[in-house]
């Protein structure tokens, strides 16, 4: 009987399997969201029991941060206008624009074979499959699945994430691939096709950033650091282990970059 059921499952059309998968996912999604909301509530109540002095201090620090961010916003606006003016003068194609969608992390699911997070925004906020996801430390990953109220993001350490990168300050492309998650140490990735003249050490690591090639990630976003590079098997390029930001393991909030439709900025 069990063999017949297994055979029936294998012969079932893909449409039926997809429908079942979506149904079961959406059926479980409220539980996942409820768990995440309960954690937020727990964090709220743990903050409530802090002393008034601690809250005043935190408020003062926040005010300082806001003041510095406001200066940065003005500076960014000035630079953006400058870039637009240069693009007009030199008749350069403009960079694709993005809308930034901030989302809470509902769950983190990291094991030896995959590393993914579920965020509390989905197609209801216009998120699409393939959207880049970032945080304060750089690249988080790429949206793999979009559901009604949630999305699943493949972390940059996942082995199915590949992207073109640059060593900061260089314009020769390097290939990056997620390298999994081990029991000890930070998550990591692998870099290939690093130019032979690049040198890295623990005192002077190389910063790997997105290249913008391929059009998914905008250029210049930090990926990770290379502390050592070794000659590749062909001798023409070098390879290296990329140490990713340790904060990837404790993400609570991320930003999804949703591209504006063409012609709309």
């Amino acid at each position, binding site marked *: 009987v069990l063999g017949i059921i297994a055979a029936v499952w294998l012969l079932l059309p893909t449409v039926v399997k997809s429908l*079942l998968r979506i149904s*079961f996912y959406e059926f479980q999604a409220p539980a996942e969201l409820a768990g995440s909301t309960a954690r937020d509530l727990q964090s709220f109540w743990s903050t409530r029991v802090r002393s008034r002095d601690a809250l005043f201090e935190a408020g003062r620090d926040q005010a300082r941060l806001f003041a510095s961010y406001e200066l940065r916003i003005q500076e960014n606006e000035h630079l953006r206008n400058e870039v637009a003016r240069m693009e007009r003068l030199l008749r350069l194609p403009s960079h694709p624009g993005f809308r930034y969608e901030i989302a809470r992390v509902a769950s983190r699911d990291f094991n030896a*074979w995959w590393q993914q997070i579920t965020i509390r925004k989905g197609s209801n906020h216009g998120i699409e499959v393939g959207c880049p996801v970032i945080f304060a430390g750089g690249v988080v990953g790429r949206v793999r699945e979009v559901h009604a109220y949630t999305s699943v993001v493949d972390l940059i350490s996942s082995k199915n994430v590949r992207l073109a990168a640059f060593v900061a300050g260089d314009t020769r492309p390097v290939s990056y691939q997620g390298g999994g998650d081990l029991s000890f140490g930070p998550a990591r990735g692998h870099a290939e096709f690093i130019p032979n003249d690049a040198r890295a050490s623990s005192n002077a690591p190389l910063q790997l950033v997105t290249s913008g090639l391929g059009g998914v990630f905008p250029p210049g976003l930090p990926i990770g650091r290379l502390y050592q590079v070794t000659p590749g098997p062909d001798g023409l390029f070098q390879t290296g282990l990329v140490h990713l930001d*340790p904060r990837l*393991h404790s993400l609570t909030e991320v930003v999804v970059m949703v591209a504006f439709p063409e012609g709309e900025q």
Partner: protein
Amino acid sequence: MRRDFRWLIVAVTGWVLLFFVDQANHLLTEAPQALGWVPRVYLYAAGLPIAFAGLRLTLRQAILAVIALGLAADAGSPVPYGSSLLLYLGALAAIFAFRSRLPPDEIGPATLVAVLTTAALFIGLTAISAAGQPNSFIYFGRAVVDLLASLALVTIAGPWFFSLQVAALELFDIRLDEEIRQAR
């Protein structure tokens, strides 16, 4: 004839268990960063509900429970959909082959079956996930740590989970112990 929904009760309690395991995995991802010396682990406890369904339900009821659990398990993971379902069905077949030799209402042997089932399912899922990935042998160390942590969890949580399943069934007036006694 009164419909028998005990498979659904077993599946729902299984989903509740898997929900709590997911929450634990979420918190465990940041534990090494907070505590420094703790290794990163991933818990897997799918063997518990499968073992209960295999040991305490009829074949028809066990199959329905396993289908409900298997389809829910893969819905959010990147493995081909249905992988867990096929693994669970395989595990169920193995449990049914041996169950006549096991005492049906004792916690100790049931926990042992759950531990063995979890180990078999974890190894199966690892084989599916590792297939086609380059240099996958590097990650077997992590997989072994995850497996050992999962087996420890199943050993500790097994007696509690089996009691929970029995209590959940009793809420709906299904008394497995009495049924076993009457069958004897």
